[in-house]
């Protein structure tokens, strides 16, 4: 599902280019889960952004579902995110102007895969039934992250990219949300690439990789 081959990325700084990722390669098959750990600034999020086509590589190739992400136009990469990839962020990134119901349905409607019955089932399982008419600002952090997860899963993506999905939540809430998230991902059959600081959370995923000084180390 996900093939990353020899990907490098650097950022310009006043002191010259700073290499964040150096010749990174990894594969992730459909239905598998992979945790990417590393220190702050190790390039975890950057790698996630490159996979999602939110940023472009300096060298190497990224393929998602057989389609090459790297070297494509912005509009093509956007189409890929719309149809194949689902993103879950630490900051939730809900649309503040839309209700919870509209936020949940948003991406599924955007990619033309809106199934009301599936969404209703998902909503119920995520415990968001009574919150559909509220606005994001009226929810707690845990509730907001559940909405973000529901929004992603409702569109039935083949690859889910999660960037510290529980990083803004306390441990108990984070664990509860992650349980729910992993259950739903497994049920959907999608591949999951999750970035996290926490070795404890990483251990709950099928595979673990560690990023250090721009290089990848496999731990499983």
């Amino acid at each position, binding site marked *: 599902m996900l093939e990353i081959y020899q990907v490098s990325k650097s950022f310009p700084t006043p002191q010259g280019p700073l290499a964040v990722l150096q010749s990174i390669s990894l594969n992730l098959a459909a239905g598998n889960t992979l945790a990417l750990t590393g220190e702050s600034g190790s390039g975890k*999020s950057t790698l996630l952004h490159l996979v*999602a086509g939110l*940023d472009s590589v300096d060298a190497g190739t990224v393929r998602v579902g057989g389609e090459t992400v790297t070297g494509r136009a*912005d509009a093509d990469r956007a189409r890929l995110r719309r149809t194949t990839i689902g993103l879950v962020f630490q900051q939730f990134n809900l*649309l503040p*102007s839309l209700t919870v119901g509209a936020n949940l349905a*948003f*991406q599924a409607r955007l990619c033309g895969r809106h199934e009301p019955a599936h969404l209703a089932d998902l909503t119920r399982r995520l415990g968001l039934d009574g919150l559909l008419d509220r606005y994001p*600002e009226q929810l707690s952090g845990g509730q907001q992250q559940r909405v973000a997860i529901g929004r992603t899963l409702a569109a039935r993506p083949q690859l889910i990219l999660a960037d510290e999905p529980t990083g803004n939540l306390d441990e108990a809430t984070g664990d509860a949300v992650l349980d729910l998230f992993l259950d739903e991902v497994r049920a959907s059959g999608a591949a999951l690439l999750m970035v996290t600081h926490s070795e404890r959370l990483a251990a709950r995923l099928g595979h673990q990789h560690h990023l250090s000084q721009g290089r990848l180390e496999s731990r499983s």
Partner: protein
Amino acid sequence: MRPLVQTLRALLAHWRRHPVQLAAWVVGLMLATALWSGVQALNTQARESYDRAAGLFAGAAQPMLVAREGETLTDDVFATLRQAGWPVSPLLEGRVRVGEQALTLVGIDPVTLPAEAAAASAVDQTGFELAAFLTRPGLTLAGPDTLQQLGVEPGAELRLASGALLPPLAVASTVPPGTLLVDVGLAQQLLQRPSELSRLLVADDPRWQTQALPEDLAERLYWQHGQSEDDLTRLTDSFHLNLTALGLLAFVVGLFIVNGATGLAFEQRSSLLRTLRACGVSGRQVVLALLFEVLLLALVAGLLGLLLGYGLAALLLPDVAASLQGLYGARVAGALQLEPRWWLAGLGMSLCGALLAAVGSLWQAARLPVLGLARREAWRAHQQRGVMLLALLGGGLWLLALGLFMAGSGLVVAFAGLAALLLGAALCLPGLLSVAVGIGQRLARGPVAEWFWAEARQQVSALSLALMALLLALAANIGVGSMVDSFRLTFTGWLDQRLAAEVYMNAEDAEQAEQMVEWLVGQPEIEAILPTGHLISRYADEPLELNGIRVHDTYRDHWPVQQQLADGWDRVGTGQAAMISEQMARRFDLAPGDSLTLGLAATPWLLQVAGIYADYGNPRAQMVVDLDALMARAEGPLRQGFSLRLHPDAAPQLVERARRDLGLEGTAVIDQASVRNFSEQVFERTFVATGALNTLTLGVAGVALLTSLLTLTQSRLPQLAPLWAQGLSRRHLAWLEWLRTLCLAGFTILLAVPLGLLLAWCLVAIINVEAFGWRLPLYLFPEQWLRLIGLAALTTVLATAWPLWRLGRQSPATWSKVFAHEQ
């Protein structure tokens, strides 16, 4: 002190990171100050010129003796009165030319000048050299602006068009623009009027005004109280009030920019303010630092604005001076000379405006809780409630406007009503936009369309100030434009009626009038000679233009009469009735059939109002009466003239012959086309300043929109990035953002049309009537609206294109930073 300094440093650091926002703030206040102070500079300059004209020889208060009709005032009369102990002083006034410039030459006798006249003129000033003035070669006193206008330095000797040489020039700041002051004996020589005097100034002492004149002079002289300059101030007040109103509108529009930028800066710095509070800076210190920051920025913007305002005023002054001369005959110095108080007042206005624009943010800062997360959404929800409050306030202002229009009277009240109307409409705008966006939201199908309208609803608050500015500026443009074009159409039609004769001749004096009659009867192509006599008198203590005519079919067929009694012109011909101008009828509440009494001579003249006619462009009350009846009652000489009927093709030759045979110059003989041309030129120049201010106001609104969007797009990324992450391209999102702004601006532009028309109606039906005394018919000019709508749309497109182009061009790295949890 240290926390205050550190707080201020932390606050000011925000502007280093947001230079566009800082530019918006400074440009907003700078433009507001520039337009306001520019208008005030024009008004100050004009008023200073009136004051100097009024002050010369004490103007209004100065009693004087002048010669009766057919009599000439000479040195002998002056000598006789002085010998009899009368405190009189001779004065001779005439027109001279220096190169292309026409100037007024005034001859005085500084030794006998009454004390109050001396105080008002230059002759009691320190440094005035009486001996140098009286002895050859003498001195020519002139205002500094006159010297500047002539392009000469003090000490220069001017040569008149007649060839005569004036004494060396000396500067006297109290001498009005366009006036030269010399010794009366010298003036008699220069004007080639030996022994002649225009009037005798008399000390302003009631004893002398009740004293009977010597018997042999009583029939030759009469008392006159020169009040024209004082009247000038009153008459021109409406003109200046109009300019002030436009300046104030531009100032308010500029303050919208400042308010928007301040509000956004506060929102962006709310977490900084909380942090400062958490670090031990007291709420009072935070507010003080914010206040100091506002004053510091206002000082810089105010000074820049004053410089810009000065430039603007210098640019517009020639047109304003021409308008004032054309409309009121007022001479205004052509070069700006502003006193320190103008600079101080402008700076004060700038500081007050900045404080007014920032008061909301300062209030919020004072009430900011130390704890609690900065929640943009909650702030926005608060703004939504504000939209409702604003709409209610706007409705209240409309009711106030209605009340003022229905119950109030006077120009200031009318302008207050107009201000309430415009401000009320502006305050209702966010509410109306919310309603329109709500309809769009209900009609939307598809997730992107739903998000589009939902975001539009939230953006109404953020953009409302800029859109209010656009609404006000565009409505003002449509309103004033409709009024001016209606006026132009009416004025052109009115000129057709009023200028029925083919050639007009004006005599300098009775002798020249006789020469003209003799010459005219010998011209075979003339079909009718219509004699006229003109006199400035007073009615109910206001100036009145009295026009004497001999009733003729030309008047019956062409005069722009609005309403009249049956056989109105025949009644005028009897000498017992008069046609009065619309402004006179409105000012004194007169209607056809009413009676009025003129106090021209010892016996009152009872006249019936036979009709009312339109007299656009003339601020004075005017009346048309029978010429013979007027001559019989007038104490002083009439300014005589002749309107000539002949075939239009023969007019240019007749004018040329009259100039040659009678030695006439300038407007002494002029054909209809030239008068029309001149009148139309005066008309157009009158509205040059108005047009320029209007265009600038629209420009300021454009800047308001631009700066609002520039600052808004900086805070839009967090809203847009999630959509980008979900598969909408950056270009698509930039287009949607652009389209949304255009929708909001487009709706505002559409609302501006009815508001502009309402404004136009108020201008012609209320303001014009209060200011000038005439009411115009309101014509509609859809092509003008389309032009303005196009201009506003273009302004909007340009103002929105750049920030959104920038948004679309931002690198993916910038967009993806939104998702970085280390942010």
